[in-house]
């Protein structure tokens, strides 16, 4: 009998003893969110991957144009030079094939990071990423884990029209066995991606083409952001806005405009969808008694639907009115600039929704 050298043979039930997870700190013990080391969102992602690859040779990156081209969106720029072609791997345009291949590598004890140029292209890999990665541990009775990260651009880019503008979070978050992170800023992008790479379960990591150039402070020191730990991005008393990913920015802009009219709202950035930090939502709902979930997926069976259901289950009596949701318009993503803007849960729509809840 031979045993695999790379994965803990005792992944169950002794996982805690073997898990190479760094300390996960609460928000108030993490490095400061504010500071003057300003880098782009894409650089934060690159730093996270590079640091983890230096730390652990099991980690590698593969995807379309990640190596010689330096990344279709320059996220992996320079990584081929540092890590070489055996760890930064260009793939053919065949997501089904390379996602499945990477999953088997994860089952074998490696730690693949799979870059989808866009999550819109992940559907041709739906079978491996949904049928294999999140179910392997269960189907094998605890024998084979799947420590893998799938990451890429999610949501409307800029006039990319219907097939290239998918928000996959509501579709994929439905599946047990996977975890999902949706960072809204460079600080979170780095801290969450480092945690995702260390996590022994499959992590679906959603970025946004529209945020890759966003600049903000990212600490010099190493840090990991725990999954299931939301950040209160803005504190108010009128309404709690619950959001994640790019729409957090729409919420922050709406909050500014509302503040100018004397209305102060909360903005709660969830950071991860699965796990969902429902306790932080409840805590704020008990203060504001009104909640609006701002979600860039379509309304039917959306993340907002789930969040609102959990709110009703957990703190119904604290609500002064029905919880509300603001999703993208329930149509395929349009191309025309103005139509695309109207389609999104944009600041104007958020302001209007909040005012409807206050009047």
């Amino acid at each position, binding site marked *: *009998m*031979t045993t*695999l*050298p790379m994965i803990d*043979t*005792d*992944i*169950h*039930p002794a*996982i805690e003893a073997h*898990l190479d997870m760094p300390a996960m700190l609460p928000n108030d013990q993490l490095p400061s969110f504010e500071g003057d080391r300003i880098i782009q969102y894409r650089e934060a992602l690159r730093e996270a991957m590079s640091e983890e690859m230096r730390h652990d040779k*099991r980690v*590698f990156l593969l995807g379309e144009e990640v190596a010689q081209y330096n990344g279709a969106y320059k996220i992996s720029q320079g990584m081929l030079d540092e890590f070489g072609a*055996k*760890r930064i*791997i260009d*793939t*053919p345009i*065949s997501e*089904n*094939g*390379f*996602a*499945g*291949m*990477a*999953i*088997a*590598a994860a*089952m*074998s004890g*490696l730690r693949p990071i799979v870059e989808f140029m866009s999550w819109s292209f992940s559907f041709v890999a739906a*079978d*491996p990423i949904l*049928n*294999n990665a999140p179910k*392997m*541990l*269960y*189907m*094998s*009775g*605890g*024998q*084979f*884990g799947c*420590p893998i990260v799938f990451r890429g651009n999610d949501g409307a880019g800029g006039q990319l029209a219907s097939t290239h503008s998918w928000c996959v979070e509501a579709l994929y978050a439905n599946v*047990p*066995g996977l*975890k999902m992170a949706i960072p809204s800023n460079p600080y979170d992008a780095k801290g969450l991606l480092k945690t995702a790479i260390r996590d*022994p*379960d499959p992590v679906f990591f959603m970025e946004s083409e529209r945020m890759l150039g966003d600049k903000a402070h990212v600490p010099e020191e190493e840090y990991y952001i725990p999954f*299931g730990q939301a950040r209160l991005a803005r504190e108010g008393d009128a309404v709690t806005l619950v959001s994640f990913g790019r729409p957090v920015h729409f919420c922050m802009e709406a909050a500014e405009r509302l503040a100018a009219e004397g209305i102060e709202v909360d903005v709660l950035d969830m950071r991860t969808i*699965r*796990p*969902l930090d*429902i*306790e932080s939502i409840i805590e704020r709902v008990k203060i504001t008694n009104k909640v609006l979930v701002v979600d860039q997926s379509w309304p039917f069976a959306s993340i907002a639907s*789930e969040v609102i259901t*959990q709110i009703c289950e957990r703190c119904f009596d604290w609500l002064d009115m029905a919880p509300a949701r603001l999703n993208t318009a329930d149509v395929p993503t349009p191309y025309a600039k103005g139509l695309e803007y109207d389609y999104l849960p944009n600041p104007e729509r958020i302001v209007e929704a909040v005012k409807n809840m206050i009047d």
Partner: protein
Amino acid sequence: MSKRMPATAPQSNDSKAVSSVTNKSNEITPAMMLEWLRQMQLIREFENRTMQAYQQAKIGGFCHIYSGQEACCVGTIAATNDDDPIVTAYRDHGHALARGMTPEACMAEMFGKVDGCAKGKGGSMHMFDKPNWLFGGHGIVSAQTPLGAGLAFAEKYKLEVMGEGKKKVSLAYLGDGAIDQGAFHEALNFSAVHDVPVIFIIENNGYSMGTAISRHTANADNLISRGQSYGINSIEIDGLDICHLYNEFKPFVDQCRENSRPGFVDLKTYRYQGHSMSDPQKYRTKDEVDAFKDKDSIAKLLSDLLGDGLITEAAWKDMQSEIKDQVRAAMDFAENSPIPEAGELYTDVYANPEKNLSPTATYTHGTKNPLM
């Protein structure tokens, strides 16, 4: 005698391939032939009892019987090392047994019991055996093909990047129906581009469920052209004669390992039962099935052994009787193994089960897998 002499290494159509195989070490010994006979008969007997248990409703779901194809898994696995990873489709009982899973663990899994290889969570189509490097039976046609490439990729990565392990080959088994899937072509292309030492073994039983091969795939009598079109070393092998199979396949495996290149094998075989237990088999005649039963792989090997005086009729009877007892013991074991406790429903979902992963469930770690 020629059947036990190794064939010359298959003609390469792979520009990167350079044969460095010495055929001496590949010679078939009488002990190997006897062991293959035992394994093939074990699978045949195991499947007979599987069908009985299915008809008694002790086994549920979809259940695909391997009878007729025994030489395929036994002969190919014999040509690999014990720590070469393999992956297969849903017709997987034979591969599990040939790889060394106990009949007890295999049958208990189908009975949905805690002593099954997946603690009763996988069933007939999902045989996993980590200690024996079996990375699953997989239920979606051809989904295991990219996985097979990934297994070989991972072992190569460990050796080249991490300086660990050794040169390995992975085997990815698929049926002829699976070659029509896109995943198959993507896996071949990736493996060829990245020099991945995976061997795609088409267990070609002539049917994609109920659709005959000439009706489901183009160029059906020349499947190796699929591999060749990607520059992959490709051979066709008669999968009903295990000695011939081994003689052809062993140098092929050695070459893929040595050159770190993929391979493609059209392994001609036949299944005696329907696609699954619920198949009335109206798409083929009894005459066709009988014609193949006349070429039965176990009967062929037995006749070779008898002819060469390597086994006696009495010894064969003893072997059959021992196997019957062995499988009967596995049936008893499966019957008596406990059903999973209700709490097992929520285990093995996450390796790191944090809170708030589900609105309705609290996940925990499960009991230790019986194989580990």
